[in-house]
């Protein structure tokens, strides 16, 4: 078998080498580029997934050909070039090599997503194993944690085989009282060593379930979670981890500030929608810290959750894989949580992830670690390398300025030749990624996501590579509220510096073009690149324009059967909800029921499953809609609300189906629109700040 694989590789490698390295004139290269683009446009229309593999091959060929040409013919070495040119050229070529490596590794990682299905459980529930549910918390407010605990209590699993533990590292009295009230175990420890990992490890010492289900304290499980995941564990005793997606029912800062919630897939959806499914086919699904079940035996074997890095989850699964344990990923949302509210909190969380992955890269490098299979090495390496995108992204955003502003020749080639080689490389990668990832990441949106985070993750990743012991665990803030519209000028500082630099480059470039530059094609190429960069940076500026959250509690648009009674014990009017939150609900007004704002009534959610009425006050009525706000909830009422809103098995399953499909040109239009909006917001803020400052100065001088 191995020989056959080697023979196949050689059989493909020889002609591939010929295609990649063949030098062509501008005419023939342009001809080849057009041929490749036509082929990609035909292939993208073929629904059979095997054609997507052909597209990957074609894209890799186009990109390899471009890289070969760049490395062998375009480096500014020799007469007419100085050290300055070489410095800029080296920066760009390193960034391009990085992007090429990520592209190829990404294709390998997601070549054949597994789409694993839940395994059946033994017919007799007496044979089902015991499960401990861990809900670690440190400084989150109780109202964030309550729904998670109440939903865990409603998990469909034999009650004598299910134990729920709230791991309270904050050692708070109100948490203890709540646990006592609802009947779950409140676990604390004397210190906070190793943060979340240490908290879980301390709980492992004091509990005894065969399996551990872990939920972050703001990730609320649906009632089917354990039955969906545990079958896989029981069917194969070598499976140590079953991970499910992290789903968010509130918009993250990108979605809120760019108004793309439930229209454009969010930043994390590519990972949970496609990459983890791809990892699963290589037996390399990672532990993501929450919404997962782990086998206690494995945790005991590897010494518990890893504590050496700040991304303890991925590190733990890496150690499990190195010991020969398997993992599984079930791509069915079985829990949902709150996304980070503000851009600064979001960036803080991503910095931790980036730093942690860089730490693992140093501490337990997957390419050299013993016990891993090749596929696992590649998947983990790609996951870690991904977080080094900060520097390459900044290089791409500034490279054309080296030519336009500083006059450096960083690519030793004519503009048309660069276009003939680069166009198939960039466009084929875009079309192929759209074919593979379209449901989970729209084209060009990664540029905005990466641009926003790039300036902030460069230093932490580089420092973590130099010294993995630097820094400490920072808890992601959740459940806050953005109470006003504002431009986050501190976060946006790197974006507007980049924006102004590119604007200057564009102006100088236009000037050079109008004054008669001897290489107008090169100037035009760099101008086009700069204009594109301006749109992307504009998108980042738009993300930094924080939008006010209208409501304190996140409303989930969902149609749940409900009943309304105008008075306790009175006749019931059946209806459906329009949206529901933890603080209130909007319901379709039933015929024959007339209510007035301020009127008290009762609402029953899911009458076929629950008989707990919730007291509420009408806040608005009209247009066939009644909006109510709940009054103080008892534990039973709160539990009924949690089960109806968050605990339904179908709560999040078809969430993705309602997003728009990716159309690259349309996606580019959206990105450009956001870019222009961001630029406008920036100018408005900048002029406002200048006028304000000038006014202050005038007032000071007149008073003096």
């Amino acid at each position, binding site marked *: 078998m191995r020989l056959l694989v080697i023979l196949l590789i050689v059989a493909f490698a020889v002609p591939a080498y010929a295609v990649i390295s063949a030098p062509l004139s501008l005419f023939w290269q342009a001809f080849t580029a057009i041929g490749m683009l036509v082929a990609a446009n035909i292939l993208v229309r073929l629904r059979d997934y095997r054609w997507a593999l052909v597209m990957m091959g074609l894209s890799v060929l186009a990109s390899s050909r471009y890289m070969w040409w760049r490395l062998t013919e375009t480096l500014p070495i020799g007469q007419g070039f100085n050290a300055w040119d070489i410095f800029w050229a080296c920066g760009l070529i390193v960034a391009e090599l990085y992007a090429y490596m990520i592209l190829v590794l990404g294709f390998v990682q997601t070549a054949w997503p597994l789409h694993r*299905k839940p395994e059946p459980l033994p017919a007799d529930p007496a044979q089902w194993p015991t499960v401990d549910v861990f809900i670690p918390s440190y400084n989150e407010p109780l109202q964030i944690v309550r729904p998670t605990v109440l939903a865990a209590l409603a998990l469909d699993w034999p009650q004598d085989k299910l134990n729920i533990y709230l791991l309270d590292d904050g050692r708070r009295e109100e948490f203890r009282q709540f646990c006592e009230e609802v009947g779950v175990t409140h676990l604390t420890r004397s210190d906070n060593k190793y943060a979340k990992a240490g908290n879980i490890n301390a709980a492992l010492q004091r509990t005894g379930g065969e399996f551990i289900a872990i939920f972050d304290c703001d990730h609320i499980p649906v009632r089917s979670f354990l039955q969906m995941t545990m079958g896989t564990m029981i069917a194969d005793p070598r499976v140590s981890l079953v991970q499910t997606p992290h789903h968010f029912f509130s918009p993250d800062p990108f979605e809120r500030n760019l108004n793309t919630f439930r229209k454009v897939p969010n930043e994390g959806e590519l990972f949970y929608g496609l990459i983890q499914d791809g990892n699963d086919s290589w037996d390399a699904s990672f532990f993501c810290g929450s919404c997962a079940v782990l086998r206690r035996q494995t945790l005991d074997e590897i010494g518990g959750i890893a504590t050496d890095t700040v991304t303890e989850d991925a590190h733990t699964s890496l150690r499990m894989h190195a010991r020969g344990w398997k993992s599984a990923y079930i791509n069915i949302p079985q829990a949902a949580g709150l996304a980070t509210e503000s851009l600064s909190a979001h960036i803080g969380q991503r910095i931790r992830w980036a730093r942690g992955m860089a730490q693992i890269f140093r501490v337990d490098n997957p390419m050299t670690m013993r016990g891993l299979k090749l596929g696992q090495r590649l998947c983990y390496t790609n996951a870690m390398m991904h977080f080094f995108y900060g520097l390459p992204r900044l290089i791409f955003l500034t490279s054309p300025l080296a030519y336009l502003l500083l006059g450096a020749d960083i690519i030793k080639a004519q503009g048309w030749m660069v276009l003939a080689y680069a166009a198939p490389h960039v466009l084929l990668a875009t079309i192929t990624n759209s074919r593979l990832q379209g449901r989970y990441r729209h084209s060009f949106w990664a540029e905005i996501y990466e641009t926003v985070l790039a300036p902030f993750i460069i230093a932490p990743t580089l420092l973590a590579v130099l010294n993995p012991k630097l820094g400490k665990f920072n808890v992601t803030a959740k459940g806050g509220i953005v109470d006003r519209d504002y431009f986050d000028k501190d976060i946006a500082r790197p974006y507007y510096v980049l924006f102004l630099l590119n604007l200057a480059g564009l102006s100088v470039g236009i000037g050079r073009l109008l004054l008669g530059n001897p290489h107008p094609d090169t100037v035009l190429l760099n101008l086009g690149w700069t204009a594109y960069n301006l749109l992307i940076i504009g998108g980042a500026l738009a993300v930094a324009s924080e939008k006010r959250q209208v409501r304190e509690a996140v409303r989930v648009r969902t149609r749940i059967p409900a009943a309304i009674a105008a008075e306790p014990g009175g006749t019931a009017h059946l209806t459906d909800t329009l949206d529901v939150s933890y603080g209130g609900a909007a319901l379709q007004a039933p015929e024959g029921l007339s209510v007035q704002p301020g009127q008290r009534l009762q609402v029953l959610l899911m009458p076929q499953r629950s008989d707990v009425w919730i007291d509420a006050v009408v806040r608005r009525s009209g247009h066939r809609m009644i909006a109510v706000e709940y009054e103080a909830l008892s534990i039973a009422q709160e539990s009924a609300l949690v089960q109806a809103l968050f605990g339904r098995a179908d709560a999040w399953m078809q969430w993705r189906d309602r997003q728009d499909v990716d159309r690259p040109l349309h996606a580019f239009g959206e990105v450009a629109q956001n870019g222009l909006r961001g630029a406008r917001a920036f100018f408005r803020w900048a002029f406002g700040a200048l006028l304000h400052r000038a006014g202050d100065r005038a007032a000071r001088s007149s008073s003096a």
Partner: protein
Amino acid sequence: MPDQPKSSDDVQQLLRDLSIGDLQYREFAKPQAARLRLAPNRSAEPPAAASTSADPAAADAAPAAPAAEPAAPAAVAAPLLPDTATRPAPARSPAATPRAVHESPLNFTFERLRRQAIPSRATPLQLDLKLPSRTRATLPSRLDQLQKRSLAEVFGSLCRATSPQRNIS
């Protein structure tokens, strides 16, 4: 929200509909279906009754308010259907015929459609208003005298009726 599918929370049905494995789902916490006394004016939304059981005692206590009955299983409901011709017609809209408890709206079958359609055709709407019996306002002996009055006397009596003396007497 017309595009939004209605939640059923029927996991087994969901597994079948989305083709996600052969898992046989077990319910451990028995759902406590609410016993509702439904409001009368709800003909516009008949399907909502599908998932609701009603309290027969409450229905007896308030006959004027038509109440849903406990849903019969499909096997029992079918033989009862022919009896609807001989039994007294129900004093409620057939549109309020309850469906089985916990039956998923996704679980559409022609049998269910038949169960809903036949009673609505077999038993046309009959209203029993149960009004009190009429009583006479005037004695028969006095009625003749009243009818023989002239128009002027009638108007005169009307004017007197609004006067304070009339009220006192």
